[in-house]
């Protein structure tokens, strides 16, 4: 009796805890998904139905014209083009520069390397507000305001978070690879481009996805530097429309859906890299 009781009880425990955890997880998921569902639902409703109480999940009349009209009213494609310009250039620059810097901090042994790296990590604690004003003045004096330049150019010079992420990945690659290549007469640059970069693809993909997400979603940077509607990204353009036409929920939700959708697609494509990138910086920190 006593021998069988243990496992039986723990199996019951297990079913019980599975049911309990599923219940809580489903409840959490509903809360987490609710804003997306409501955004899409509102985007398809005619104005008369939007303010209807009690709220209804499915519109009585599906109004897809909200999408066409909102895209025109908000100048969606103009802003989209600016956002793409910003995202694409910045993302490529970030991957290239951070790969190079992280290589210098992980695969080359030089005196003082770890002390300098500690410095890189320390800069992550610096509030952006401290550098914001002098940088704005600096870029204004260069004549870069309003334009995308102040948002794009700094990406060519690395970012502490990405350097950290890539270094965490690169230090796990076996040192014998480099040594073997060195004996074969491969230069440091050759080892970087021909051996380490191909192996670092998953981590580079994480950087690519994070930077894409960051530039697509960034609001404060474009708000400060893009003061001309011609240069607006989707973030600022949409926010501007929101402050001027705050009650046009059908249009706003349609534009919001179009704005969010690409990132959701990107997440489904790169889910593994996103998750690995986050855990790489979170755990061994």
């Amino acid at each position, binding site marked *: 009796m006593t021998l069988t009781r243990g496992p039986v009880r*723990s199996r019951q*425990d297990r079913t019980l*805890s599975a049911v309990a955890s599923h219940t*809580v*997880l489903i409840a*959490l*998921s509903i*809360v*987490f998904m*609710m*804003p*997306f569902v*409501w955004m899409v639902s509102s985007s398809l409703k005619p104005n008369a139905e939007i303010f209807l109480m*009690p*709220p209804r999940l499915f519109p009585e009349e599906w109004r897809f014209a909200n999408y066409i009209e909102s895209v025109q009213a908000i100048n969606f494609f103009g802003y989209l083009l600016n956002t793409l310009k910003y995202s694409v250039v910045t993302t490529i620059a970030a991957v290239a*520069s951070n790969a*190079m*810097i992280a*290589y*210098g901090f992980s695969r*080359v*042994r*030089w005196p003082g390397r770890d002390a300098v790296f500690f410095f890189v990590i320390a*800069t992550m604690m*610096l*509030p952006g*507000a*401290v*550098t*914001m*004003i*002098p940088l704005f*003045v*600096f870029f*204004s004096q260069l004549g870069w305001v309003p334009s995308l330049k102040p948002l794009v150019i*700094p990406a060519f*010079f*690395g970012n502490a978070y990405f350097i950290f992420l890539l270094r965490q990945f690169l230090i796990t690659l076996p040192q014998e690879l480099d040594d073997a290549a060195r004996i074969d007469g491969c230069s*440091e640059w050759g080892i970087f481009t021909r051996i380490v970069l191909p192996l670092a693809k998953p981590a580079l993909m994480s950087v690519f996805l994070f930077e894409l997400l960051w530039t*697509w*979603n960034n*609001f*404060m940077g474009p708000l*400060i530097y893009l003061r001309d509607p011609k240069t607006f990204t989707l*973030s600022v353009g*949409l926010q501007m429309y929101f402050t001027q036409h705050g009650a046009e*929920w059908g249009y*706003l*939700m349609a534009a*919001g859906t179009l*704005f*969010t959708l690409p*990132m*959701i697609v990107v*997440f489904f494509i790169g889910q593994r890299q996103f*998750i690995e990138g*986050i*855990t790489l910086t*979170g*755990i061994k920190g």
Partner: protein
Amino acid sequence: MASDSQAQRLSRPQRLTARLHIRVTSPKTRNLLWGLFFISPWIIGFLAFMVYPILGSLYYSFTNFNVLRFEADWVGLANYREIFTQDRLFRLTLSNTFRYAAMFISIATIMDILAAFLLSLRVKGLSVYRTMLFLPVMTPAVAAAMTWVWILNPKHGLVNGALAMLGIQGPPWLASPRTALFSLVLVAVWASGRAVLIYLAGIQDIPSHLYEAAEIDGANPWHRMRHITLPLLTPVMLFNVVTMLIFSLQEFSGPFIMTGGGPNNSTLLYGVYLYRRAFMDLEMGVASAMAWVLFVVVLLLTLLIFRLSQRWVFYDR
């Protein structure tokens, strides 16, 4: 040393090339040069986008810098004196920000660990749940903020509409000074799925033999959570709490878009006020002083957390 004395016996040009040769081929120096070469983008960026602006904002904080004319007159401590003694909004902003950060960090930490713990129980459909918790992170701040303003609309919003169907009169959420700050905290917790992933990875890092041993000793799930998972998760908690602290003390986009600091300045957070002083009032000297105060506050709080962490973070694995 030996190579130096060797070089002295050679002719002048030979000596020079020998020296150069020594310089280039000495593995230590060569590695140093390669290392500096690879990190050179960071060095330039660090000087141009960090060192220069840090010193610049420190200097501006002692001036009445005018961005329209690019002119700065030295005013000494006047900006600091103003924000600490005359500016009532500054003090309100500080207290709003501290309350916001404290509420956000405590609620998010509990919710995120709970979610990560549930996800770690090897339930079916883990990737579906994980995706759902992470989607808010992927949502552009502007789209999320607009949607939440709509959902939390006191009269026509989804939440109060649903509550009304249950016969409950919902709170005014973002529309009242009493509930607005808390509403912003809830939205921020909704978007904190990044920390869930980090906690989840931390939990999965815990060796399973510890749980097996505990199970043999008759520990129930609660015991396992209390005595194994939580203590071994404390280093990850420290990382997440520090990250959240730095992030929430500078919170800008959410409050700026959803409330603009209102109603009645109840959600005027430090980041929003600083932006207003710098880019709307164009008082860049005062704003620089505010930025430096924030810097010192972040630094002191982080040091405090690290100091206190020696008491609750469990490092021995």
